[in-house]
């Protein structure tokens, strides 16, 4: 009894501390994001800051997103072929692979790659700048760190992720088609015909809309974690890891809610009463 009595306040205190920490973190992040958007609206990015960010986020991400996009399409084809073939729906595989890629896997995969490759690097770079007092030096020279460092990264991630998503979509579609038509011998004409008739511009737009929010989340989370890093090499490493984990969770949570919102928007407002069937 005595032990339980002694342990309970500790547990409550720890939970309370955790709660306070979580609320503080969320509040701090919300303020940080608001400041970033305020700077974005108030002043153009500092000269010479935009191009390096666009290069890092856009050009340097192309190979990894192309490779992962291709393989995810190929893997889907391998996993789905036997089931669809048993049902005699092998030519419909294109519809299934393509709709999954453009709506879900393309945007989520491109965002995950961006969070892992670019987000972690941004967090580590800003954390190193904090640890070596470069953020303080910026402020001393009259440059606001959010305007100078966060705004270009936010713009680069937000504007370029739709293009990266289009690349992931394209490579995924091509990967799936390659396996289905060249390896499993599905008739290419019917494969593409079904794929074309089933995937609409709305599906593509839905994926691209989600990707914009993913890009924003990745940039803001990574910059926030970097600029609030703890001291030392351990702090820098932790900032990079935390930025990826938090970005990945944010991508999945946003994907769920945005997906639900956009599907409802389509079903109730844009195309009421229309439902789609895989088999026409």
């Amino acid at each position, binding site marked *: 009894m005595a032990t339980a009595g002694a342990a309970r306040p500790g547990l409550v205190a720890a939970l309370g501390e955790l709660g306070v920490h979580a609320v503080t973190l969320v509040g701090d992040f919300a303020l940080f994001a608001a400041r970033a958007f305020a700077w974005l609206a108030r002043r153009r990015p500092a000269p010479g800051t935009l191009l390096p960010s666009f290069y890092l986020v856009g050009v340097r991400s192309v190979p990894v997103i192309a490779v992962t996009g291709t393989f995810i399409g190929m893997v889907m084809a391998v996993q789905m072929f036997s089931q669809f073939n048993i049902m005699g729906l092998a030519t419909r595989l294109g519809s299934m692979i393509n709709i999954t890629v453009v709506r879900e896997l393309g945007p989520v995969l491109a965002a995950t790659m961006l969070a892992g490759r670019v987000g972690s690097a941004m967090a580590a770079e800003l954390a190193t700048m904090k640890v*070596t*007092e470069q953020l*303080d030096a910026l*402020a*001393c*020279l009259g*440059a*606001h760190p959010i305007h100078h460092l966060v705004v270009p990264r936010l713009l680069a991630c937000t504007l370029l992720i739709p293009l990266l998503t289009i690349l992931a979509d394209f490579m995924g579609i091509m990967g799936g088609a390659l396996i289905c038509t060249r390896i499993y011998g599905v008739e290419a004409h019917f494969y593409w015909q079904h794929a074309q008739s089933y995937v609409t511009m709305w599906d593509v737009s839905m994926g691209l809309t989600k990707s914009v929010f993913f890009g924003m989340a990745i940039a803001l989370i990574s910059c926030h974690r970097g600029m609030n890093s703890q001291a030392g090499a351990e702090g820098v490493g932790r900032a990079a890891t935390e930025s990826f984990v938090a970005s990945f969770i944010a991508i999945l949570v946003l994907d769920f809610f945005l997906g639900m919102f956009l599907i409802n928007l389509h079903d109730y407002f844009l195309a009421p009463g229309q439902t789609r069937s895989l088999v026409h």
Partner: protein
Amino acid sequence: MSLAIPETPLIALDNVSITFGAHRVLADLTLAIPKGQTVAVVGESGCGKTVLLKLMIGLIKPTAGRILFDGRNLAELHDGELTRQRLRFGFLFQGAALFDSLTVYDNVAFGLREQRRLAESEIDRIVRGRLQEVGLPDDIDRKKPAELSGGMKKRVGLARALALDPEVMLYDEPTTGLDPIMSDVINELIVQTRHKHPVTSVVVTHDLKTVNKVADRVVMLYPLARLGPADAQILYDGPPAGCGAAPDPRVRQFVAGEARERLREAL
């Protein structure tokens, strides 16, 4: 022992306290620095010297008390005005804090490009003048900070800080990590800076050679953890020559650099 404080100091700390989490670093600190004076702030590691510098330039805000610069309370200034006031300061950071991604030239030109609408030819003139002033060769301007030695980084940091013609120079341990000759070069540059530009200087250092060479006045801080609740955190405030004969044995111990009872604590 204390110097006479003028009625309108350029920088004044009025009962300033600062706490990070549960850790109290500075408590009820009152200090006035008149225009043109060079003050050395000395003390053991962790006594809050760097925090004091960052408070003076408004990089961090005090938990209690006021910091007045030229009669204005920094805590009451909005962002734009605080930035304008900060530009009246130059800050030489402990590790120089040069921007890794920029060349030496672009580091020194950074503040000029950010704040002043100057022609590139005018920026070039200022940058080369400042690099020359701190004794750096012309061919260094295209190098990146990673290619420089510690002493060169400090000199580039000083050139960058001086590029905006500051009224106040803040030096955070300017000679730490440098060899004795390079330390003396930096000390000479601090003295020369004062002769060439009418600056007020605050030098945070452990190096008593620096104190004796550059300072008009020494302020010694003591870590709060070693003080009683009623003790003042400033143990000494006076001319450098008086440090060694200060009545407080803790000041004399610091000047002599003797471990004494602290060795047992360390063990």
